[in-house]
């Protein structure tokens, strides 16, 4: 037994410490969890809309807020332009905001995140679309059903698309002239494309790359898979959606439409997938294109506008980018993606998704409608930084200054090839994309490495698709 003679004073002191600690612990335990919303000024009862920052500069934000204020002076609006490198980075930041208790009411979501948000976070817009059908009839008449269908998940509509970009092929006139080649016909084939690259290579120096492509889900290997009549994940359509198609689209346009896309079963080892990879590997071996990792999008405008690249797949957004880089409307042009087994093309679209956590859902719906109005989009997309989802906005006047000459290609990609579809983006899209990027890099090291890399891709995709998000 230890000798423990506590003096009365010591006992009182320790007692006081204990009581103080207990009081502090009790006070701490009784506090509500501190969240980002507790920061003064964070929650000012505004409708908060999160957009991808780099695409929405101060001018665009002012345009959106001023116009909305005029229509709805009673609704306070705050645009939160989240700075992010790409969609995956953007979604990560939105999820961090949600975890921090500062979830926005609306989030600008591209195809890459449509199903993830729909499945876990989004509110279906069906009831509002049905309620305001008369008001929306003009919108749907102006927007291609493929874009709308890409925003559906399991029979419900989650977003009204406001913009999209299909992977069309941009060609540099200066390089075409140097190669003595003429502008390709709309129905050009994969072999025509290869021959053109060879001509370009022959007529240019060693610091020239005929075809520049990037390693990502949109605009990378996927358009070649589409052109070869296949996909990374087997594609099917969910049932349902008749409420929308029957209500807004004529019979010819609603044929074959469903309740949104389903991408379920990985098929990386499909013979046509291997064939597409084999083709791209052969282009690399022949020095006709960059390796995918080398072809990052950041310096793409620079190398294309200076004539160091002849051809690259890009969307309507490039018209604005090339114009900013100093290219004139006559310096370049755009054509459909070349035909292989099919001439089906890929696109990605974007619109505003309403979050379940929003307490201002009616106001949010008003913003969604406002953001899809033609006058709003006219003001917002004045520099051709994207392809508007509304067909009526694609006019000669819009592209007179920026080009390209064949600007009709942008919307005709949907109108003339109605099977053109969205990139494969299931709820597990982040992992699917990472697996694609990783194994595409190794697959294209040589033609012999295509098969083994695709087998590993298949195995990783299967694991990814089994996981619940």
């Amino acid at each position, binding site marked *: 037994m230890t000798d423990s003679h506590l003096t009365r004073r010591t006992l009182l002191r320790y007692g006081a410490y204990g009581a103080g600690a207990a009081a502090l612990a009790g006070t701490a335990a009784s506090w509500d969890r501190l969240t980002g919303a507790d920061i003064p000024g964070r929650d000012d009862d505004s409708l908060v809309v999160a957009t991808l920052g780099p695409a929405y500069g101060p001018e665009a934000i002012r345009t959106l807020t001023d116009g909305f204020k005029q229509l709805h002076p009673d609704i306070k609006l705050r645009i939160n332009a989240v700075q992010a490198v790409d969609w995956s980075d953007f979604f990560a930041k939105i999820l961090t905001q949600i975890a921090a208790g500062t979830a926005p009411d609306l989030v600008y979501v591209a195809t890459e995140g449509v199903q993830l948000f729909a499945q876990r976070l989004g509110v279906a817009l069906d009831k509002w679309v049905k309620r305001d059908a008369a008001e929306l009839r003009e919108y749907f008449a102006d927007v291609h059903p493929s874009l709308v269908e890409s925003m559906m998940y399991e029979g419900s509509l989650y977003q009204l698309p406001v913009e999209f970009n299909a992977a069309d092929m941009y060609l540099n006139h200066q390089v075409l002239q140097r190669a003595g080649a003429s502008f390709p016909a709309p129905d050009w084939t994969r072999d025509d494309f290869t021959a053109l690259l060879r001509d370009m290579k022959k007529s240019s120096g060693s610091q020239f790359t005929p075809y520049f492509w990037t390693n990502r889900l949109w605009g990378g290997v996927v358009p070649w898979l589409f052109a070869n009549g296949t996909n990374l994940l087997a594609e099917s359509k969910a049932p349902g959606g008749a409420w929308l198609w029957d209500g807004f689209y004529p019979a010819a346009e609603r044929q074959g439409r469903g309740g949104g896309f389903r991408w379920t079963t990985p098929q990386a080892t499909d013979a046509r997938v291997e064939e597409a990879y084999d083709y791209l590997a052969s282009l690399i071996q022949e020095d006709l294109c960059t*390796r995918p990792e080398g072809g990052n999008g950041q310096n793409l405008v620079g190398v294309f506008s200076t004539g160091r690249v002849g051809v690259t797949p890009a969307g309507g957004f490039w018209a604005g980018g090339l114009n900013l880089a100093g290219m004139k409307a006559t310096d370049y042009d755009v054509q459909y993606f070349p035909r292989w087994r099919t001439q089906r093309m890929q696109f990605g679209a974007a619109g505003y998704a309403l979050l379940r956590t929003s307490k201002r859902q009616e106001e949010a719906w008003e913003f969604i409608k406002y953001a899809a109005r033609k006058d709003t989009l006219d003001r917002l997309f004045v520099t051709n930084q994207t392809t508007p989802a509304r067909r009526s906005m694609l006019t000669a006047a819009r592209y007179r200054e920026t080009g390209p000459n064949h600007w009709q290609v942008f919307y005709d990609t949907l109108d003339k090839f109605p099977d053109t579809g969205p990139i494969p983006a299931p709820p597990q899209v982040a992992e699917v994309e990472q697996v694609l*990027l990783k194994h595409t*890099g190794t697959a294209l090291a040589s033609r012999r490495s295509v098969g083994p890399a695709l087998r590993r891709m298949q195995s990783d995709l299967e694991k990814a698709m089994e996981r619940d*998000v």
Partner: protein
Amino acid sequence: MTNTQIQAVRPQPAAPAPVAPKPSARDRGSRLLAALFLAPTIVGIVVFTVVPIAGSIVLSLFHWNVIDDPSFAGAANYREVFGDSTVLVSFRNTLVFMVFAVALQLLIALVLALAVNGRMPVWLRSVFRSAFFFPLVLSAASISVVMKYLFNQDFGVVNWLLGLVGIAPVPWLTSENGAMTAVVLVYVWQQFGFSFLLFVGGLNNIPKEIHEAASLDGATGLRKHLTVTLPLLSPTLLVASVVGIINALQVFEQPYVLTNGGPGDSTRTVVMVIYENAFEQLRFGEASAVGVLLFVLIMAVTALQFRLSRRFVHYQ
């Protein structure tokens, strides 16, 4: 056993413990003052280091995707991590990176510190010190963006320069060896300034008399460095290598921006895997499990360094 021996092993009665003198009021005041000054740092360490580490350990036992409530997973996250080839490859890559990056960083820093410490005008020495330290104050992400352009196989300045001397374009960022080499080079270029400053400080602390004595004994330049400078610099070398290794094991920005972990997984590092699991795939439990493993690895490597340092580090 003799009596004497018995007496020798018999426990002696314990001497009364020395009674510590009661601290004076002045001592108590000093201690209170010291505690007050230390408090912000201790609070900072607890809030920003101890609590997150504990949180990570707890979170590694749960499945959590931010959106839904966490659910207890036990050791499932660890089992998954050990069965995931990407995670294992990332640990291998990180260790390979660490070995090359730290060795190169220390070597370059030491050689340059010795050079700058030699006979050189003071103003020129200041210029070199500033120039070598400058990359360290820049953002690793922005540096990596610029380097990505420089190392581009088709349009980069590095290959253009190599082309001037007849060297064929190197696939810096698109081949497995090239990518790791580029990541190491960029990292070392940015980081060696820290070790360099430490070495300059360490070299200044070596008394000139010892070098003079070595000279009198006939030691020449290289021999003097090997037998005098390096042993006396060993405490600084230890600090530089410990900090260097801890930093290298946590490398993220350079491989993330330069290669995004590719081609394949060849430059994917442990912290990249943590980031991808947590913020791209919403698997915070698995990410925390990898984080805990990295923490254990860093602790083990650091402990090993200190253990080995007993043999190699000489304090004056």
